[in-house]
């Protein structure tokens, strides 16, 4: 049965990463989501999910080839809720240090940096492919999609680069990887984004999808 009042969410497909699991998470919590690469599906959506695993520059190139950069920026300007995941979080930022410097969507001020190969003479394994804990920084998690997550909860991470926001007030969680403390989730106006994969972090992760949708009146 189709409920015409159900809000539409578009999972943006720019050909990088496992979108199946993002869609599966949406289905499970009752979000009406489609996977699409088309500008019209972004224009017509009530909210957007920007997922992805892989390389920043390739991702921006793909978005450019699909003519989606301006479409996403327009949706952001219209204050549509945007949920970024992993590489999708990084793309929201100003620029990346990956292979020189690449320009991002510039919706959140800040830079993408690579984990150092060593720290104080000790080797750091990169990428981080691990469960790691997220903890509160200055902003409280109540009234955010993390409202049901306890401080220091473990989430699943897969990444070699991390975001370094220019404004501390955009930081929602921090994580410590082998001595390197970094920002692992942000929220800024209509934008919410995580470095970790909530769709791969058990039911605790799925609560983030559910609460994001609920807070934005999508379900």
């Amino acid at each position, binding site marked *: 049965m189709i409920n015409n009042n159900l809000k539409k969410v578009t999972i943006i497909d720019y050909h990088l990463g496992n979108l199946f699991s993002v869609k*599966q998470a949406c289905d499970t919590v009752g979000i009406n989501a489609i996977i699409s690469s088309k500008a019209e599906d972004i224009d017509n959506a009530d909210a957007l999910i920007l997922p992805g*695993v*892989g390389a920043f520059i390739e991702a921006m190139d793909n978005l450019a080839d699909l003519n989606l950069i301006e479409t996403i920026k327009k949706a952001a300007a219209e204050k549509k809720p945007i949920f970024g995941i992993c590489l999708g979080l990084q793309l929201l930022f100003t620029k990346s240090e990956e292979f020189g410097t690449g320009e991002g969507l510039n919706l959140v001020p800040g830079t993408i940096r690579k984990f150092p190969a060593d720290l104080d003479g000790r*080797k750091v394994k990169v990428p*981080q492919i691990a469960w790691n804990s997220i903890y509160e920084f200055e902003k409280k998690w109540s009234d955010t999609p993390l409202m049901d997550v306890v401080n220091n909860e473990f989430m*699943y991470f897969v990444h070699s680069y991390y975001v370094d926001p220019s404004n501390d007030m955009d930081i929602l969680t921090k994580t410590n990887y082998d001595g390197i403390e970094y920002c692992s989730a942000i929220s800024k106006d209509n934008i919410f984004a995580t470095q970790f994969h909530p769709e*791969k972090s058990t*039911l605790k992760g799925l609560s983030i999808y559910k609460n994001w949708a609920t807070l934005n009146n999508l379900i």
Partner: protein
Amino acid sequence: MDIKGPNLVKGIHMEGLRVLGKPADFAKYYYENGADELMFMDVVASLYERNSLHDIISETAKSIFIPITVGGGLRSISDIKEVLRAGADKVCLNTAVINNPELIREASRMFGSSTIVVAIEAIKESNGQYLAYTDNGREHTGVDVFEWAQKVNDLGAGELVITSVDREGTGEGFDLDLVSRISALVTIPVIAHGGAGNKNHVSEVITKAGADAVAISSLLHYHFIKENSSSVHSNEGNSEFLKQKRSYHTFQDCKIAEVKQCLIDNGIECRI
């Protein structure tokens, strides 16, 4: 989880496969009991040059919200694409990349490094040298394990699974020398596999050998069988082992939660 046809199986030194039950039952149980990731390996796929796990993956991925890695018989970019489309998060490659190392570079570029896991099956020769094998320890390649590990690292793999075929399925403990040398050599995360017979072995391979993660099968499977009456496809494979309801004396089988508590007691951070 080693899969042969419709069954979850387990061998010793990767040979003499025994049928243990339905993969979906084990997957659900491990997910609900704190597994951090599931690895499905089609153990006969290389023989037939095909991976037959698509149905199991797509079924599992609908209800299991932890990372899923799939391996066995994946030969090409299109094979990888197919299992990722079925719902796998990562693929595990061995035979294909030892024959064609450039596939690591190509696949990492296309799917992201973190999607590409390379498995190395190591056997210690009588002269002490470790050589890489393929097809579940059956095929000799003559390739030195440490040289190969360095190459896997440099070609852009995201993770490396090091299996000691000598210890695999025995419960005698990990080959700490092998794991620590690999871990010291490479800059990517190393998953130790082969030999866990009790929870202390798991803790030891992390604290003493520097493993970044640990893959366990028998230790947990035997406990699952004790606790659950799994339905077995008795028409395929050797299910005599299961009917006898015995586990090997070398195994002190336990739950994932007991393994994790042991890790925490030893100062290793992990999710419980």
